[in-house]
Structure formats: C-alpha cells, structure tokens
C-alpha cells in the first residue's frame, strides 16, 4: 500500500466549491529511462485517477509518463451533502489504491 496525502477542508459550506489536493507515493517509472545494465527500465506508472463524491463522479483523469514521480493532482469539488470522498488510483503492474475521506457540509 503506497502512502498518500490528501488535503481537504474538514467543513465546507453547501453549494460552494473547495479545493482538494492529492499526492500519492509512486515512482512513475516512465519506461524511457535506461537502467544500469543498459536496458530500458520497464514502464510502471499510475494510469488513472478518479474521485467520487457520495458515489457521483467529480473528476476522472488519465495520467502519462510525463507526470512527475509521486503524482500530485489538485482539483475542485462542489459541496452538496455530508458524506465522503473516495479517491481511486490504478496503474501498471496491477497497481490499485483507494482512499476515503469524510466530509462535513454545513
């Protein structure tokens, strides 16, 4: 399980949008680098990221090798109801990670 860092406000006001920042520990090996033995290092990247808010889609992103190691994604969510935000990453070599964060809407 990779480490992840998710920053979002604890309480938000209904109808307003707020920023969410996500950082995931991952090497994002591009597949274009040459290793010590002269061979290309196989690609190992996070390919997809998705955020759901009470089961409804916020954002869905396709990542490429041009995203830096430890992929950081910042986006905005509109507050509707209290509940939770679900974050999902998936990638090469069967990489999959899910994180959930509670959200209180005042």
């Amino acid at each position, binding site marked *: 399980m990779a480490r992840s860092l998710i920053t979002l406000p604890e309480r938000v006001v209904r109808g307003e949008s707020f920023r969410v920042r996500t950082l995931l520990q991952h090497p994002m090996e591009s597949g*274009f680098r040459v290793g010590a033995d002269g061979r290309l290092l196989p690609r190992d990247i996070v390919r997809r990221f998705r955020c759901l808010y009470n089961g*409804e889609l916020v*954002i*869905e992103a396709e990542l490429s*090798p041009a*995203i*830096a190691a430890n*992929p950081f994604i*910042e986006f*905005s969510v509109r507050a509707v109801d209290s509940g939770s935000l679900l974050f999902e990453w998936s990638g090469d070599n069967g990489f999959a990670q899910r994180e959930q964060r509670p959200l209180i809407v005042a």
Partner: protein
Amino acid sequence: MNTLNRRRLIAAAGGLWLLRPAAATPESLAAALRDFSGGAPLRDGRVQLDIAPLVDNGNTVPVGVSVPGVPAEQVQALALFTERNPQSEVLRAQFGPRAGERSLATRMRLATSQQLVAAAKLTDGSCWVQRVDVIVTLSACLE
C-alpha cells in the same frame, strides 16, 4: 583538430542520448490534439496554462490549467500536451456532476525547452487551446 573532434564526439553522444526514446513531434502533438478535440477546430483563448516561463528542474514542474470566464458546467474536459517529451500526452481530465471550478493543477516532467499546450473542450463542442513556451535548464532524465 584533436580537441575539435573530441568535442564533436561528445556533442554527438549527447545528442544521441536525447534522441534515444522516440520523441514526440509537432505531428504527434497535432494528432493528440485532434484526438482530444474530436475534429473540432482549435481556437486560441479561454483556457489558461499556468507555468513558470523558466524552469530550473524539469523533473517536477508545477502546472495549472483553468478556464477563466467560462461557467463551470460548460467545461467538459481539460488536457495538457507537450511538443518534445517522448510522448505528447501529459494529462487528460473529464469532469463529473460533482466537480467545482474546472481547474486542475499537477506536477509534470519536461525533457527539454519546448512548447506546452493546454486544451479545454466545452459542452458546445468547441475546443480552445493555449500554447506556452518554456525554457528548461535541467532536463528530466529522458522525460
């Protein structure tokens, strides 16, 4: 003469090193943009790409894409492309019903000084782009 040859050799070796992975070309950039826009003509404006014009370290470069002045519901997708990384694609994002402002920030790799293209697809089918030139002093290791 001798030193000149050596210099040439070093320069050539450096060049080979950079060329090794299939680099993206203006053609592949255009193809990626076409794929994103779905054939709609690319128009300049509306979308805004935030990046430092001079990048010290190409390994992690903060970038932001936003669409100021356009109501959020009208922005369907955002994307970011490069001209001279090994691949043209950087990031593509689709927004769902719970998205707030349609803006996005991430950190990317830059292989060399080049042009970046941010693109936004609106619900009316139009596609907007902004092209920004950046200078990179320390390149990301082969992307």
